[in-house]
């Protein structure tokens, strides 16, 4: 279906989303292999404070590794979700599971940021946003769960 105002079709939009997800996956893989460089760069420019002092590059490297694993898992779930949508399978159990995985990944990343805010308080902002996104995804998952139930009821109404 083509939007009359933008001329942008649903299929094109889906393709763009999948392209962006693939791009994000590539970026996350790059981050995984350059975590120590990013951590070193961060420890040089960081001027914040935390409860624990000392070297910052090792904790930040560990934090990037942990959060990157959660991010890659969430992106894989996002890819599966988009793949199902492109097959016209929207309100199915698997999509609810994907949203659940994404939600938990956000929450776990938020908790990781909270732990590493012992080194720098600014990580608390990242923790807040990750937790907030996790909550939004959780509500979305609840909506999907109900939609799956309603669709099943509709499908089995003769």
């Amino acid at each position: 279906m083509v939007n009359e105002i933008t001329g942008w079709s649903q299929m094109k939009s889906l393709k763009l989303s999948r392209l962006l997800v693939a791009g994000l996956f590539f970026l996350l893989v790059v981050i995984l292999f350059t975590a120590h460089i990013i951590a070193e760069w961060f420890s040089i420019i960081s001027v914040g404070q935390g409860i624990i002092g000392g070297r910052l590059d090792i904790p930040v490297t560990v934090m990037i590794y942990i959060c990157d694993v959660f991010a890659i898992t969430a992106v894989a779930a996002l890819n599966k979700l988009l793949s199902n949508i492109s097959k016209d399978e929207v309100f199915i159990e698997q999509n609810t599971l994907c949203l659940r995985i994404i939600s938990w990944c956000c929450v776990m990343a938020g908790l990781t940021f909270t732990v590493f805010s012992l080194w720098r308080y600014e990580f608390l902002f990242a923790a807040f946003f990750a937790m907030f996104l996790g909550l939004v995804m959780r509500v979305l998952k609840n909506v999907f769960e109900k939609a799956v139930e309603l669709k099943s009821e509709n499908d089995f109404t003769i």
Partner: protein
Amino acid sequence: MAIIVNLDVMMAKRKISSNELAEKVGITAANLSILKTGKAKAVRFSTLDKICEVLECQPGDILEYEHE
């Protein structure tokens, strides 16, 4: 579920096949199978009306309530 669908019994009495009934009622054979096997979660009044009309019976002849 406590509601039992006795469509098979009524169909046998009227000597009508599944495909014929599905065609006369205006539903797919797959949906009729869902109804017959008791997998259906709801039945529209319009469907029930048509089934009763084709099978010349009452809704009570098709549907039965049983204590679980």
